[in-house]
């Protein structure tokens, strides 16, 4: 009963906070209106100790006891304002993340800064679900980077999550915090997966098995393992001597053009097709092939290089 009430209150409170923190484009400056402050549990314990000290000082009519109790009480009150002042005027200068594949984590790099002369202490940035450990100090005229990881489940765009900036500086008796939602997003490419082999280059001058047979003969070098590489192509002996998993590359795979065609993947679900195409794009790019991507409404390439690679993946993410 109480638990249910508590959950409803929490939901209502969360909704209220969400309404109050519309997403906005960085830089975002924390204003007084956005700041919340409450005593921590340790602050409650400290208040209890102060109460006992006050009773003791009264009982013993002890002037120094009163003086200490009042000074500590005043410290707690003043520390509340310091905790508040520590966050007011703090800025989120930017929030940026590189595109990721679905299933990975989007890592938003948050830049904190401020214009005041005093170093802002022990600021923690989190999403509310998992903590980020120790806080950072933001010196005057400096920026401090904090990385917020958020799981990217589905392809498309992922927005920067709502951020909770908080600090228990200075005494740990009060917690000041604020919610901000920086308007920032990044692409989530489809998860590279699939069972189909790369299509044969240039309209199938060779069949797949011939390609494989010859490929095994003409070893060209090693490259690092990327998601989507078949485990069968790993060169275990070479990998053992290196920090990375290494993939055998074959000379015949370079310098050819191949078409990654959406229509060739009939009989699969839509998302599975996109995943397969993504895997192909990733592999083709890493093998240094010239490849073109053929989507229902668009065509890319044939080309190679990081711009082409990103255009293809972007199209797949947003299709």
């Amino acid at each position, binding site marked *: 009963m109480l638990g249910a009430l508590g959950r409803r209150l929490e939901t209502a409170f969360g909704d209220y906070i969400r309404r109050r923190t519309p997403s906005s484009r960085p830089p975002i400056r924390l204003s007084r209106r956005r700041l919340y402050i409450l005593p921590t549990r340790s602050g409650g314990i400290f208040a209890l100790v102060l109460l006992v000290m006050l009773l003791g000082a009264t009982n013993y009519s002890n002037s120094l006891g009163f*003086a200490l109790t009042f000074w500590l009480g005043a*410290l707690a009150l003043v520390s509340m304002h310091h905790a508040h002042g520590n966050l007011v005027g703090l800025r989120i200068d930017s929030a940026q993340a590189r595109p990721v594949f679905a299933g990975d984590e989007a890592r938003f790099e948050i830049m904190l800064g401020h214009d005041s002369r005093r170093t802002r202490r022990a600021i923690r940035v989190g999403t509310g679900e998992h*903590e980020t450990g120790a806080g950072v100090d933001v010196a005057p005229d400096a920026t401090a980077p904090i990385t917020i990881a958020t799981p990217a489940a589905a392809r498309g765009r992922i927005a920067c999550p709502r951020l909770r900036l908080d600090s228990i500086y*200075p005494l*740990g008796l009060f917690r000041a915090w604020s919610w901000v939602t920086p308007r920032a997003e990044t692409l989530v490419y489809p998860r590279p997966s699939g069972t189909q082999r790369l299509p044969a280059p240039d309209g199938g001058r060779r069949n797949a098995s011939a390609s494989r047979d010859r490929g095994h003969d003409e070893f060209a070098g090693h490259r690092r393992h990327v998601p989507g590489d078949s485990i069968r192509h790993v060169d275990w002996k070479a990998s053992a001597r290196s920090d990375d998993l290494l993939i055998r590359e074959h000379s015949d795979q370079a310098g050819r053009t191949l078409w990654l065609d959406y229509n060739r993947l009939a009989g699969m679900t839509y998302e599975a097709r996109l995943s397969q195409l993504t895997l192909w794009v990733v592999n083709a790019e890493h093998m240094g092939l010239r490849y073109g991507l053929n989507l229902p409404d668009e065509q890319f390439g044939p080309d190679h290089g990081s711009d082409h690679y990103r255009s293809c993946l972007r199209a797949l993410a947003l299709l």
Partner: protein
Amino acid sequence: MAALQPVPGAPTPRQRLRLTACLALIALPHAFHLPLWISALAAVLLTWQAVTAWRQRPLPGRVFRFALAAGAFGVVLAGFGRINGQEAGVSLLLLMLVLKLCEMHSHRDAMVFVSLTCFLLVTQFLFSQSLAMAAVLVVGTWLVTLTFIDVSAGIGTRPAARDSARLLVHALPVAALLFVLFPRIPGPIWGLPADAGASARSGLSDQMSPGSIANVALSQGVALRAQFSGPVPPAQARYWRGPVLWDFDRGTWRRGDAAQQLPSAEIDVDGSRIRQVDITLEPTRHDWLIALDMPLATDHRSRQTAGATLIADDDIDQKTRYTTRSATDYTLDPRLPSATRQRATALPIGGNPRARALAQQWRNGDTSSAAIMDKALAMFREQPFAYTLSPPRTGRETSIDDFLFETREGFCEHYAGAFTFVMRAAGIPARVVTGYQGGERALMGDYWVVRNADAHAWTEVWLAGRGWVRVDPTAAVAPDRVESGVAASLSNNAALPYMSRASGNTWYRVQMLWDGINATWDRWFLAYGPQLQQRVLGVLGLAGWTRALLALTAGVVVLLALISLWLGWQARRVPHPDPVVRAWQRVCARLAAIGYPREPHEGPQAYGARIARARPDLATDMRLLVDLYIRQRYAPRPDAETEQTFIARAAAFRPARTRQQE
């Protein structure tokens, strides 16, 4: 919300080392009054904790911790026979705090530890409230603030020291306001333990036997400090009235419970000599208030007994400041109530037959009470009586006879006791009055110091038509005692405390100067309790709790608002003094707004190059801006023209959000 509360983790070994140091420093003054074995045990445990933290060893397990706590409990119980009470309680708290250092698994453990360390700090003031303890308070508060910051923010010792000092200064006015205005309730609330307060106190007691006042006179301490408004009476008239002793039995004079039921004294004030004296009385653990000569009124909650002594409603357990109005010309009890007369002439059935016989002989020879009194004083004066701090022992049952006829050496209690006995034996109402006599002017400040060494006892005799008359038989033997103090009147004063012997040398002056500082401290700080607070509030125009509380709330709100404003002013945006830098910052801000913020590690050139790569449409502008900026900012001789060009260019620079097709 619990999941939304990220907190710092468990204290690191380094932080545990600092926590240990904090506790050791705060517990240090306790070593002066706790038993040696407790201090030694705490020191050993603290050293063990420090070594554990220093070597980064893991914390002990739960079972071991529990065994240690139970052991500490048992040690205190065995050593003190109890776990409550002042010394035992503080010892237990100290040991438990040391053992809490073994249990530092979370930030909250550390916070609880520091909070309880504050409590350990306050217990020191139960043992002493001297000026030195004020220094302990300041240092201790700073230490706990520092430690709070250390465990909560982990920002390094130097910034933490600075920040804690800043917090302390900001908190001081609020604390002062709370100290003055927070409603004080008269204590005690739950009663004091038997060993409360500073140990080894001395002073007057409610009984007097041979040697008891001489004992008090041997102690160094200050009994009271007095401030006269108006002329100060001469030394021989400075009698400070304390408890009156009515009952004599087996050599001891006692205040007597039954005497407290007697009708209150009736005082007729002749003349207009009323003196107002402000008195700061050291704690006595007794209920009487000391006052000059004949107290008429006081602002302390009290009543006046049949002996005309002021009796406070509560025991004086702390320094107490009160104002008295005293008369030096008066008639005390012009008519003696019969119950009082009966009490004032009562003697035990037997004992001291020679003294009784002497009194009877005088009574038979002459019927006038005044004449008998003079005969007794003449006996002290003319026969070889001596005034000494270390008189020979007298028998318990025969104390008066032994003194009057055998030893003839005594301190004031011998003379006052014997004189009163003889008066009663002659049928004259008489009683012993104890208190102080004399006192000396302080070197600094307009006040007088009365020491325990000034403790005195004299006699009051009731004479028809004159009421109770003060008779000081000691003055008959050693007139100097009353005029110049104990030191001048004793032939060999080596046994007296230093302060009552030496006067005039430098060390004495330094001591008196220090006493002056202490007196101010006592008068305005330590004596600030419910009564003084009411008076101060009255002066401030805040009489009544409603007004005081309103003023307190308003004051605290205003002070906190000022602190908030000050912090806000410090957190304001500070524009860079150089207009060139400001213009460059504007350029960076505009680029950041379209999604290209400058990385903290990027210099202007690297930044410009990155923008040019990502946005070829902005390349020309960026190249120019970066070029001008670097020339203006880093060139040996910047010129005004370049500066104007750069600022104008920077102001005009408005990059489009999306790439412009060229």
